[in-house]
């Protein structure tokens, strides 16, 4: 007797209006011709042109892209390993500590993570730049990645792997040919999540970057502190659009993969 009441419908609707209205307004006003950001002066795409011609934005965007690509890839590999250790590792010395180190970064205030990593790099005399931002981003992104992947790994039916072992696979190839394809959607999700986490981060990047290594959020932040500008509106709208398209495409792909997998399972039965 699951009943979907008017109250339920209203709270969902209001909730989504609250979540989406600010972003929608931002996108609408990015097409505002007027330099006065909140006064409508007619429709125009000129701020998009200005944002795309801004060299400071472009070089920051390139830096961010490099950091995010490396971060996502390394963090996904490390996160997969961490998830396997968490779910399948059994008991080993320091398991509680390991679990703690995986979960703590999810809630750790960014200022603390940023400060502590910077002090590590300074005391080890590591020259700061894109490299140190990557190391910092990998560290917190791998924790998110391992949470996403371990959720999938927990629900994976181990008898499939055992069947592969019985049929003559060794542990490694059983993992590669049975487990890995099964948890692949979560690995892709983890990669995308790490990528966007790295793309978005301002605080940790500000602490761990060095001269010349300015990322896009750092550039946006330094402009935003001086006030709202139409170029930033346009730039932000482009980023929002990019992420939205990316997430929708990714979810469609994973949905198709899921349907295909279910169909294959049904056919095998």
């Amino acid at each position: 007797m699951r009943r979907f009441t008017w109250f339920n419908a209203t709270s969902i609707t209001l909730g989504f209006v609250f979540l989406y209205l600010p972003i929608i307004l931002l996108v609408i006003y990015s097409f505002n011709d007027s330099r006065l950001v909140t006064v409508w002066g007619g429709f125009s795409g000129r701020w998009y042109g200005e944002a795309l011609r801004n060299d400071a934005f472009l070089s920051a965007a390139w830096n961010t892209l490099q950091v995010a690509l490396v971060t996502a890839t390394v963090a996904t590999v490390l996160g997969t390993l961490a998830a396997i250790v968490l779910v399948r590792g059994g008991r080993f010395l320091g398991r509680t500590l390991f679990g703690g180190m995986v979960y703590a970064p999810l809630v750790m205030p960014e200022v603390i993570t940023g400060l502590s990593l910077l002090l590590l790099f300074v005391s080890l005399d590591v020259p700061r730049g894109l490299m140190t931002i990557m190391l910092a981003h990998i560290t917190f992104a791998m924790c998110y990645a391992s949470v996403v992947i371990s959720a999938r790994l927990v629900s994976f039916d181990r008898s499939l792997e055992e069947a592969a072992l019985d049929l003559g696979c060794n542990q490694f190839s059983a993992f590669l040919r049975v487990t890995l394809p099964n948890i692949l959607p979560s690995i892709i999700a983890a990669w995308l999540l790490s990528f966007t986490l790295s793309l978005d981060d301002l605080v940790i990047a500000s602490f761990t970057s060095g001269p010349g290594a300015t990322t896009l959020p750092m550039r946006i932040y330094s402009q935003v502190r001086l006030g709202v500008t139409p170029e930033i509106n346009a730039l932000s709208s482009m980023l929002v659009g990019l992420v939205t398209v990316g997430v929708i495409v990714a979810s469609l792909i994973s949905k198709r993969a899921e349907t295909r997998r279910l169909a294959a399972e049904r056919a095998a039965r």
Partner: protein
Amino acid sequence: MRGGGWGRRTLIAIPYAWLLVLFLAPFLIVLRISLSDFAISQPPYSPVLDLPACFGEADLPAAEGEAPDLLSCLGGWADQFWGLVEEWDFDNYIWLTQDNIYWLSYITSLEIAAVSTLLILLIGYPIAYGMARAPKAWQPTLLMLVILPFWTSFLIRVYAWISILKTEGLLNQFLQGIGLLDEPLVILGTNTAVYIGIVYSYLPFMVLPLYATLVKMDESLLEAAQDLGCTRFTAFWLVTIPLSIPGIVAGSMLVFIPAVGEFVVPDLLGGSETLMIGRTLWTEFFGNRDWPVASAVAIILLLVLVVPIVLFQRHQDRAQEAGR
């Protein structure tokens, strides 16, 4: 990955070592620097331990603790460490107690985070509840709509509120336009704006775990409660709420802990009177360049947050166990 062997050990060692070096070790360094003097130099604190001598060349094997030269190095490091106990000075911590700004920052941060968490719970619960009761066919779409803002840049989502909350901004234009207000409201630069910003940006973190527990709930329990004479409201209060406590705890921790140390929201939406500790730490670090005091601020913040963080981890571990 059953059995022992080198494969299993290497598998455990790689992520373990990474986190030890890049997550745990940095905290020890923060602790160390919080106990040293401020110096006008680069780096701006007086060196107490000769760390680079130990870790300079090889930083990654440090955590495995297997190379013999490293062990002796660690031993030497420990000796140095304890030898310096007498020289530790707590000046930075004493300094924190003497200046009101730090006290106020901690108190205000805890207050803003606690009130925001409560607000988010009150707003998020009906949303999550509605989603869990929505027709099964809608649920994937609804779920994606909650997750989507989470993928969009935090900075941009906070920034979007500036043009809404400004004195000549969209909210005031709207309220004056429909004749509700004569004078514009001053919201940007006040604590109200900070609350709005935190509630807005952390809402999905509450809705997701709440939805996850509510959707798994057995509806027949509610029917049983109603058969036994509960009204729909008392059934909700006596059955649904207690069963969703794991989700409430997880969501609250996911919101409360990062909100205490929040920097972007108070900096962009708050005013000069919004003292939040994340911002104070940032100013201490980037503005005053006093790294030792910034480290002491971080250590105290960590001590304040230890209890909620441990609660959160217990919950995560239990969820992991339950899933198996």
